[in-house]
């Protein structure tokens, strides 16, 4: 081995990153090469100079960051109520959450997203979730009775509870329109709907929270939490 090759191994040796074979080669070379031995010492000194203690960051760093964070647009949450009649009979409640660490979805909704695979388990106690193409027909949306958002669950659990989270990682999907039970209807684009075995909202949240960072509605009422649910809608905020 010549000194040129030894250079890299010298460096690797300092970092403990040589293979045993490389280390052996290096030591054999060093035994007969005083200039490389000296180089090793010189490298150590150079390291010491680079690694010499540096000042702490000034207080302004933390302050500046947190001030900037406070100025950032808030991730807003908005809740929609929606009643949808044509959903499979078992579905009484849908919960939409932004999964902030959902793996990036591909453009084609037909592909099984990784998240669905993640959530899909053979465990009977947790819901299996698989993606489904699911669109809300405008007719169904039009049939929604108007009610105010303050009347939570005016006629029992609604068919759809949608939480919109500002989340750029949320996947694109096929939901075309969701009506809001407040005066102005709202169209939601780019949502993905997962159809699951029936479970309660609370169960789904619990299962998902083990895997992902969920933003959960803070004031989820008990009635909603235990309502059966078989469809999970994930939508970004517009």
């Amino acid at each position, binding site marked *: 081995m010549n000194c*040129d090759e030894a250079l890299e191994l010298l460096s690797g040796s300092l970092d403990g990153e040589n293979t045993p074979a490389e280390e052996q080669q290096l030591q054999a070379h060093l035994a007969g090469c005083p200039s490389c031995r000296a180089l090793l010492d010189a490298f150590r000194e150079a390291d*010491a100079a680079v690694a010499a203690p*540096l000042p*702490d*960051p000034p207080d302004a760093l933390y302050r500046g*960051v*947190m001030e900037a964070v406070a100025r950032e647009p808030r991730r807003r949450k908005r809740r929609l109520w929606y009643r949808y009649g044509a959903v499979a009979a078992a579905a009484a409640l849908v919960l939409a959450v932004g999964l902030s660490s959902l793996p990036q979805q591909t453009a084609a909704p037909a592909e099984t997203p990784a998240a669905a695979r993640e959530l899909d388990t053979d465990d009977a106690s947790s819901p299996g979730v698989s993606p489904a193409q699911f669109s809300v027909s405008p007719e169904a949306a039009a049939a929604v009775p108007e009610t105010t958002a303050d009347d939570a669950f005016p006629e029992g659990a609604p068919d759809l509870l949608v939480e919109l989270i500002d989340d750029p990682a949320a996947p694109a999907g096929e939901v075309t329109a969701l009506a809001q039970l407040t005066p102005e209807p709202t169209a939601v684009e780019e949502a993905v709907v997962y159809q699951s075995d029936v479970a309660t909202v609370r169960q789904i949240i619990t299962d998902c929270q083990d895997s992902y960072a969920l933003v959960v509605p803070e004031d989820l009422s008990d009635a909603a939490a235990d309502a059966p649910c078989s469809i999970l809608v994930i939508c970004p905020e517009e």
Partner: protein
Amino acid sequence: MGAELELVRRAAGGDADAFGQLVLAYQKQVYALALRMTGSPDDALDLSQEAFLRAWRGLASYRFDASFSTWLYRLASNVCIDFLRRQKRERTVPLQVINEEEGERELSLPDPSPGPEERVLTAMEQVQVQEAMSQLEPEYRAALTLRVIHGRSYAEIAQILGIREGTVKSRIARAREKMRAALQKNGNKPAPQPSKQAEKGGSRHEL
């Protein structure tokens, strides 16, 4: 590690307090990286703040596939590398040296690489180190700093900088050689040179 993951999850969900705790936990490391790479306390402050702000914005897309520190270092390295590339290469080293403003107090970073006994450098020595650093390409500065100051493994540095491990190894070797040469030139020390063979070989390799 579980506690940090919890903080990251909460921060990803918009919890600014949780994020603030992450800033406190990592500010020393991020600042050290920026300071070593740029040699300028003012730039290091700006770049560190920029890195953390990008982290806040980007947390929603953090996939939990790499460790949080790797992800953060990647972000911080990129901020610093981009900054250095935009600068002219002829940038002069600021005369206000790194430890002058806060006096010569001794501060050490966690997880230093093992080596000769650490000591605080004199102001002149700091200038020499920064002069030497400024001879290195930005990516080389990052690799050397992450190894020698932050103690990251080659595998981690490969992840952070998005390069192969073999490239990490050769860059660090080249960076050390350049650093050695620059320090000895500036410091008027007797110079153990690599042999003629190695010097020839050194000029053949691309940096």
